[in-house]
């Protein structure tokens, strides 16, 4: 008797199947219609008919990542749960399977439909006001639909209480070793030195717990691959200054799959190459990725992920999604000359991950949230900002008013405050968000 596939197996199979579809939107629609409504809708939303190659390359990344992790586990390798703000390169070099806890919960739930797993975690006793980012994964485990990790890593202690606290909860609840990387309040050399110690301690603890050894050759391969992706990312970033905007809105989501889920792996490079070529081509022709670009919006925090259709809908109402804080990776190219330069380089990259970099200190600290967003707004010629208002993000909500005032006084541009749970569609119906966005665009355009 064969057992039923688990959530992750099912999702991996679905996405891997999608990623080898022919470059023909009709095939996507055919598939979408054969799937349950939620799954089909997600597929249609993720795959932009005008940018199929780019979309498929990104879908492939996530499908691949799940398959690979499941494969590793079946071989008896250890699986780490780590939040989006811990880049996985170092784990690949230790032959550890890195599961991004947010993506592993949200994407399968989107793909398979329903909200069951959000609630399972609440039913187990977690507060309702806690971030919905990790809840689906926790819920799948409570419902016996998924496995528990061998190690839990929290890389941004200090940047978000709910995030860090939930890691502590999981570790205690299931008796799993927890490694915390404490990100100090400041963003300077002293803080980075501190964080480097944390990072190195983490490496040796993983080695000890998992009984593995950091493979230097593998590390070099991974870092070189990661560097290549970073170079492409930065090249694309330059192209984003163009008016009209040369990338579809969904790029900001897809880039997160590449950077947050699977950085350091070869599947990410083709995605960046396709995106770069696409943008380059459009810029050369003086064209935008879509018509009727009325406003260029910089999203100050995250996007909206519970109804992916909203990304293309924004294009229809004329809103360009330049990017958000979570798709900002001001990577430095890592020096691969020695093992130390590589480890320290990865430590620094981790220290510069979204949220860790912008939200561990004061809102206006050097290289903090205000500075980064102001820089992006100027560079990408934003004419407004939007705050997605994820209710659980206390640190972001607590400085939004200050950000809004700053943009008004520094650049004279308006800001829209939404209020939502960026993952759970039941908190604010998407129709309400659309209404507010439409109202905003028509008021300021």
């Amino acid at each position, binding site marked *: 008797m064969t057992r039923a596939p688990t959530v992750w197996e099912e999702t991996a199979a679905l996405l891997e199947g999608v990623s080898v579809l022919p470059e023909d939107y009709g095939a996507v629609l055919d598939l979408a219609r054969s799937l349950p409504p939620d799954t089909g809708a997600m597929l249609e939303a993720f795959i932009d008919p005008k940018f199929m190659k780019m979309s498929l390359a990104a879908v492939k990344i996530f499908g691949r990542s799940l398959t690979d992790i499941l494969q590793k586990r079946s071989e008896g390798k250890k699986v780490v749960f780590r939040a989006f703000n811990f880049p996985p390169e170092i784990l690949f070099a230790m032959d550890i399977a890195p599961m991004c806890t947010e993506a592993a919960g949200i994407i399968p739930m989107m793909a398979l439909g329903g909200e069951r797993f959000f609630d399972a975690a609440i039913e187990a006793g977690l507060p309702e006001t806690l971030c919905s980012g990790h809840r689906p994964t926790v819920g799948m485990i409570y419902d016996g639909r998924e496995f528990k990790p061998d190690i839990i890593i929290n890389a941004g202690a200090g940047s978000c209480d709910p995030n860090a606290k939930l890691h502590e909860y999981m570790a205690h609840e299931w008796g799993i070793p927890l490694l915390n990387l404490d990100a100090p309040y400041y963003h300077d050399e002293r803080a980075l030195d501190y964080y480097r110690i944390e990072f190195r301690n983490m490496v040796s603890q993983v080695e000890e717990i998992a009984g593995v050894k950091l493979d230097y050759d593998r590390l070099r391969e991974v870092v070189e691959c990661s560097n290549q992706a970073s170079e492409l990312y930065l090249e694309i970033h330059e192209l984003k200054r163009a008016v009209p905007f040369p990338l579809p809105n969904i790029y900001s989501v897809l880039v997160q799959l590449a950077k947050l889920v699977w950085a350091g792996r070869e599947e990410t490079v083709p995605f960046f190459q396709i995106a770069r070529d696409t943008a380059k081509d459009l810029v050369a022709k003086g064209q935008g990725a879509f018509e009727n670009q009325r406003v260029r919006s910089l999203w100050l925090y995250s996007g909206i992920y519970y109804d992916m259709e909203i990304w293309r809908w924004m294009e229809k109402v004329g809103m360009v999604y330049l990017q958000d804080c979570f798709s900002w990776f001001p990577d430095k190219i890592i020096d691969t000359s020695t093992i130390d330069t590589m480890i320290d380089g990865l430590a620094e990259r981790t220290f510069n991950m979204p949220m860790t970099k912008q939200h561990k200190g004061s809102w206006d600290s050097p290289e903090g949230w205000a500075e980064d967003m102001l820089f992006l707004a100027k560079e990408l010629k934003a004419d407004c900002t939007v705050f997605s208002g994820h209710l659980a993000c206390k640190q972001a909500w607590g400085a939004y008013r200050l950000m809004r005032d700053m943009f008004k006084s520094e650049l004279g541009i*308006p800001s829209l405050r939404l209020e939502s749970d960026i993952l759970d569609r039941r*908190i604010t119906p998407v129709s309400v968000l659309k209404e507010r966005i439409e109202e905003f665009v028509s*008021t300021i355009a």
Partner: protein
Amino acid sequence: MIAAGFDFGALAAKAVLMKDGELVSYGIGDVRANPERVVESVMEKVLSEAGLSADQINCAACTGWGRRRVSYTDKEVGELPCLAKGAQWLLPSVRTVIDVGGQNSRALSVNDKGKVIDYNLNDKCAAGTGRFFELVAKALEVDLGELAALAYQAKSPAEITSQCCVFAESEVVALLNEGLDLADIAAGVHDSTVKRLVAIAGGISIEEDVVMTGGCAKNERLIDGLERLLKTQVVRLSHDPQLVGAVGAALIAEERLRQS
């Protein structure tokens, strides 16, 4: 030129007719009492008062929560531009509009052309809106219109702390049970709403002249409280403040017709 403006809110539907830039008639209808035909019935009233027929209307626009359901016009306009336009027409020196409607409260900064330059809305909770007053008035068994007059008689306003409209309902009943004076409770209800409004208005920079619009702007006690907490004067409009959105819609309809 005859322009019609509609503002179809969650609780009340408003209609105005303007003739050559002058307001000639208006009407307000209760949405929940007659959701299907409220617009038609208000419109009939407005037209008959003005002595006009529907085919004499040159242009029309509709704003508000139910705007997509109005068959008179295919021109729908956002609520914010209408509020700004209407308020600026009624009072050219206006720079800040605080609108308290049935389910939404908002503050707008307006320039001298009647264009919105910044705004802030209430959060995901209906405390501090018209619906809140309705519920509380009902719980206190007081006529909605009497609530403000009652509040003026307060000696020491009660504190209403509930964050949720529904709980506030039982909170006021509980206060009544504790033997608190009805007037003190009514004053507490106003003060708690004023605090919510100040939090919303705090999101924009308040410049004079300030006006209040929406159904709750008829409540003098609310305006008084707001003036005290914001330390600024609120200018009383010469027309019913509930009509401002509809007036704005009519003006925008006219503007669009001229431009086309």
